[in-house]
């Protein structure tokens, strides 16, 4: 009895149940809802990656939109080339281009494009990590830097409209590997692909944080100087985690763009980048499972509110976030703690700060 209960209440257990349910849901939902949920699953992949960086290693990036954007744009460029069947995309003609720029030509190969969608963000993160972590730029300074980079990236994309479609983005994404992106079958395949990728990412991340490497990550978060004095080069560790996290963001962007069929700078701007960190915070930092729930719940919530109350939904979402942050500062994952505590009185409150009434 205890044995069985313990599996279903471990992270692996809950995640497995979640995945089983998510695998069944398409049977019950319309094509549109399945497609929508598939996009949220792509976000969950990013949230897991961000949790590795923020929740476990203590490095807050408010610039994951950049890496998400690299993945999304590189994939979208490939799909645009495929969709336009050898011709120039329309926005390039308007901007007076006569032939495909070499950067684009490079991305007309699907294998190159899909690998670069993950490798480019990783490369950028390595470079960034190398220059910042080695110079001991950390905490809020690093966070501000990532915000500035988002702004730079968005400005760059908008200003280079002959290459990127500017503020309109890349809109006419029709086919991938010859399959129509608007057909429900393609979307169903992409849904399950995303689900499988999320599962692999989740269990690999869980292994990582339970390994020796994971212990070092947590040690960096809880006492970086001590670790450094013990002879660890924390900058290397941080760069590796940052790179990994960026790669997952790129993967997320790639899967996301295939399911929404459009990419614009608004998707990777400052606000979406902050929202990404919000999913992690709402779900619960340093839990891996929390951010998955955070991404799914926050996006389901905003879709639901915006459909039901188109006039005031942004306020409702804001209110929901505030309530969670006030009552569950450590995220939704601590909701059980709070309830147990209330029942047992203030017996077990040393772990979660001062007792709060629900």
């Amino acid at each position, binding site marked *: 009895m205890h044995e069985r209960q313990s599996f279903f209440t471990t992270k692996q257990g809950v995640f497995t149940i979640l995945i089983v349910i998510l695998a069944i849901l398409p049977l019950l939902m319309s094509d549109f809802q399945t497609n929508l949920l598939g996009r949220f699953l792509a976000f969950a992949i990013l949230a897991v990656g961000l949790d590795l960086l923020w929740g476990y290693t203590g490095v807050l990036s408010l610039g994951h939109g950049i890496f998400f954007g690299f993945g999304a744009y590189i994939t979208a460029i490939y799909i645009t080339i495929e969709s336009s069947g050898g011709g120039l995309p329309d926005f390039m003609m*308007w901007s007076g281009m006569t032939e495909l720029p070499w950067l684009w030509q490079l991305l007309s190969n699907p294998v190159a494009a899909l690998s670069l969608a993950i490798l480019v963000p990783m490369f950028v993160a390595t470079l960034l990590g190398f220059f910042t972590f080695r110079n001991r730029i950390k905490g809020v300074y690093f966070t501000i830097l990532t915000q500035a980079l988002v702004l730079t990236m968005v400005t760059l994309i908008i200003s280079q409209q002959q290459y990127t479609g500017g503020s309109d983005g890349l809109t006419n994404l029709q086919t991938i590997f010859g399959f129509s992106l608007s057909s429900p079958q393609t979307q169903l395949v992409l849904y399950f692909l995303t689900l499988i990728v999320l599962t692999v990412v989740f269990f690999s991340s869980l292994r990582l944080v339970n390994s020796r490497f994971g212990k070092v990550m947590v040690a960096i978060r809880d006492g970086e100087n001590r670790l450094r004095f013990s002879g660890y080069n924390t900058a290397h560790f941080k760069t590796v985690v940052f790179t990994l996290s960026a790669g997952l963001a790129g993967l997320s962007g790639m899967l996301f763009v295939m399911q929404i069929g459009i990419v614009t700078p608004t998707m990777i701007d400052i606000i979406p980048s902050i929202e990404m960190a919000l999913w992690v915070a709402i779900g619960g930092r340093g839990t891996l499972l929390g951010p998955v729930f955070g991404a799914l719940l926050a996006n389901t919530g905003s879709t639901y509110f915006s*459909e039901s109350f188109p006039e005031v939904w942004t306020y409702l979402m804001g209110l929901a976030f505030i309530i969670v942050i006030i009552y569950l500062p450590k995220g939704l994952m601590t909701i059980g703690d709070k309830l147990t505590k209330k029942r047992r009185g203030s017996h077990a409150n040393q772990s979660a700060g001062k007792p709060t009434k629900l």
Partner: protein
Amino acid sequence: MCFTPSNKALSFVFICFLFTLAACQDGSSDSVEAEDTPADVQEAEDAEDLDEEQIPVGILHSLSGTMAMSETSVRDSELLAIEEINDNGGVLGKELVPIIEDGASDWPTFAERADKLLQEDEVPVIFGGWTSASRKAMQPVVEGHNGLLFYPVQYEGMEASPNIFYNGAAPNQQITPAIDWLMEEKGDDIFLIGSDYVFPRIANQAVNEQVEDAGGTIVEEQYTPLDHTDYNTIIARIREADPDVIFNTLNGDSNVAFFKQLYDAGITADEIPVLSVSVAEEEVQGIGSEVIEGHYASWNYYQSLGTDENIEFVERFQETYGEDRVVGDPIEAGYFMVHLWAKAVEEAGTTDTDEVRKAADGIEFAAPGGPVEINGENQHVSKTVRIGEVQEDGQFEQVWKSDEPVEPDPFLEEYDWASGLSEIVTDED
């Protein structure tokens, strides 16, 4: 290993998630709300609320974010038209029920919401969009599901989707006549300023060809990022170049900054007049009429028009939404395009996209800005071109108008100077 608090936590979160999913499934569809909509228009959340005697129609504008200020007014005029149609017995004897969605000033959201309206609510038509980016985001969606989009705003042309009806001005119904008028009345040296995105870029390509053909000079062409607010450098360049007129395709908040700084720099409308194509009555309110007084705009409609249809329209709009509200060109287009769609459906006898498209050719309506008629070939409408001058009270006074409604020519095929432009675009098809 027993039931520890953190284990319980997991189960609890999990259950919460299931509840949320369940809640989203049925979408709390039993509540039909009517807040913020004009008197009798019933608003549905979901197509399931509707019975056989009702037709759902989608309304998709930005109700939050930077575009909300402009787009909510278009939503208002669309709801007004729906109310009028319902008061007169509806369409095909059925009541129209608007399903309102928020595009949130975010183009992917427009695509997603359009998808939802067509797939979940099965609306036969979406009235929506403002920016070209939002239209381009919705285009693959409406084409993929063979839906209909009625789009209310003037745009750069060079587009003809079988699933979109363009109710704003094509370039030849706004920009081309404005340039003609400028060169005749104000002078040949033109300074181009615009926001850096598709509409100004394409519009100015055409303007360049046209001005060159007519023997004028483009003294300089400047673009600033969207939402740019510092125009001192550009104003210095304007002084240096000393043009006869400025042709302005700036969008949104940039106009406020540009006109204020131009005013502060002491450049008056007498000295160098500015003709804008994205500044209507609402924007004039935002800029301040004393700042922009004497400058010009080119549109198909002004609130100040004295036709019977317009007086009635303005009265009804202000009665419903408040005396202080102003209307403008896109708001008028939002209003008449709902009527055009309704008439086309009546003509077709069904809401089926292909039938409505066939029936739409030649559908007319006496709009507040003068008669409009759908051109079935390119799915734009013919409309009257009007140049207006900003007055002290923030209204426009019409200083020139076309003798009759101008036929839409989105690819500028009628103009020799534009042959290079339309070739570029038609090559691709």
